[in-house]
């Protein structure tokens, strides 16, 4: 690039240096050009593209001096702007092909204006009343979303029927014989076999009843009968002695073991 391209005025160099520091904050060359054009402090339509090209080139030059590496896209545009600048400065060559410098400059101006317009539009959009911030939808939509997992439902009538069913169940139970608490002889026999070793001396049968069968009279009666039957069984097999002083008196038992008597 010829040296005379980089001959920006001092204020332009200052602007360029200030912007170089923020280069990471720009969204590409067009964003940077828009920022540079705003430093011209004129309506976008009247921005001098020639001056803008110079500002941009000063920016690239400043970056070089500050040893800040610019992304390739910034350098591509720098080359293009250098070309545009030369086209704008040189008298038009009628033999040259392609668009004129003015056409290219006009298009760049259009692009800047269009980007600026979209920025403004975005800001106006965001300034509108927004759903969930200024305007609200129904807080409890009654629609069951299709994405919803399984929900459970029941109608009031189902609930009432269920309750009616429970409350009337007793009235219509199929006949079956109620069975009271019964301590089986099998259980008594098993328990007594385990206790035999402890009955080295006379023990009252009533004291051998399992704890939870010894209080309630019905249960005690069942347990006593079962235990007595079990005791008879053990006497029969020769493992136990039984003794009762008189009818309705306490019954005593004692393990027989090897002893006699």
């Amino acid at each position: 690039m010829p040296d005379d391209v980089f001959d920006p005025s001092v204020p332009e160099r200052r602007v360029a240096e200030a912007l170089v520091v923020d280069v990471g904050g720009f969204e590409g060359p067009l964003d940077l050009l828009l920022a540079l054009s705003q430093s011209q402090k004129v309506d976008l339509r009247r921005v001098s593209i020639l001056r803008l090209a110079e500002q941009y080139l000063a920016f690239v030059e400043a970056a070089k001096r500050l040893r800040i590496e610019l992304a390739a896209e910034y350098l591509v545009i720098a080359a293009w702007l250098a070309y545009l600048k030369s086209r704008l400065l040189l008298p038009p060559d009628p033999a040259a092909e392609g668009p004129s410098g003015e056409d290219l400059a006009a298009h760049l101006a259009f692009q800047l204006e269009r980007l600026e317009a979209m920025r403004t539009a975005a800001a106006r959009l965001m300034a509108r009343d927004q759903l969930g911030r200024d305007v609200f939808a129904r807080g409890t939509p009654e629609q069951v979303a299709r994405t919803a997992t399984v929900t459970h439902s029941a109608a009031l009538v189902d609930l009432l029927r269920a309750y009616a069913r429970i409350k009337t169940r007793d009235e219509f139970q199929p006949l079956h014989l109620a069975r009271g608490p019964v301590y089986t002889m099998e259980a008594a026999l098993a328990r007594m076999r385990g206790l035999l070793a402890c009955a080295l001396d006379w023990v009252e049968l009533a004291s051998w009843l399992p704890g939870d069968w010894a209080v309630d009279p019905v249960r005690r009666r069942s347990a006593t009968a079962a235990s007595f039957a079990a005791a008879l069984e053990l006497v029969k097999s020769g493992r136990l002695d039984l003794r009762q002083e008189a009818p309705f008196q306490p019954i005593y038992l004692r393990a027989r073991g090897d002893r006699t008597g």
Partner: protein
Amino acid sequence: MNESTRRSFDDPAFRVVPGPEQERMVEAVLFAAATPLGLREIEERLPLGCDVPEAIAALRRRYEGRGVTLARVGEGFAFRTAPDLGFLMAREVVETRKLSRAALETLAIVAYHQPVTRAEIEEIRGVSVSGGTLDLLIELGWVRFGRRRQTPGRPMTFAVTEAFLDHFGLETAQELPGLAELRAAGLLDNRPAPGVPAPEPERSGSLL
């Protein structure tokens, strides 16, 4: 007008809101709320000095007979589809599953006997209540834990929630019909009517 009243008049929070405007505000707040709101909750959202009960009464009148009505749900208020238009929403209830019989019975017992302990539920149903059943009802938001019963073991009690009342369209659990009413409504006709004039079972005293 003294100094302090003049100041409060300038403060937007103290400015008196005209009645129709209060009604609009309550309307918007109830519409946007995710749950039924009680009077106090509505008041907290409105500028100071609003007469919420008055605004609610006006709104209830305004929505009377409309497609949407302002319903009282437990201690709160919420907009609800008019009961006679429920059929319009039927198509949306696609992925719902019916409650199992066990869950339905347990729910019914909680509703009629609340606060009720698990042991009492089992006694009434005549079978043990699986842990999953109560868990499901709690998860559905229809049953909640009540206070512990002041008896040995201090068992936990269960009660129904506002969401339950809301779902079944009840203002209070006291509104549940009693057995005699159920029978009158033909809800017991799936079983042969007993020959004896059915006495109300002993628990009926706690029904209502």
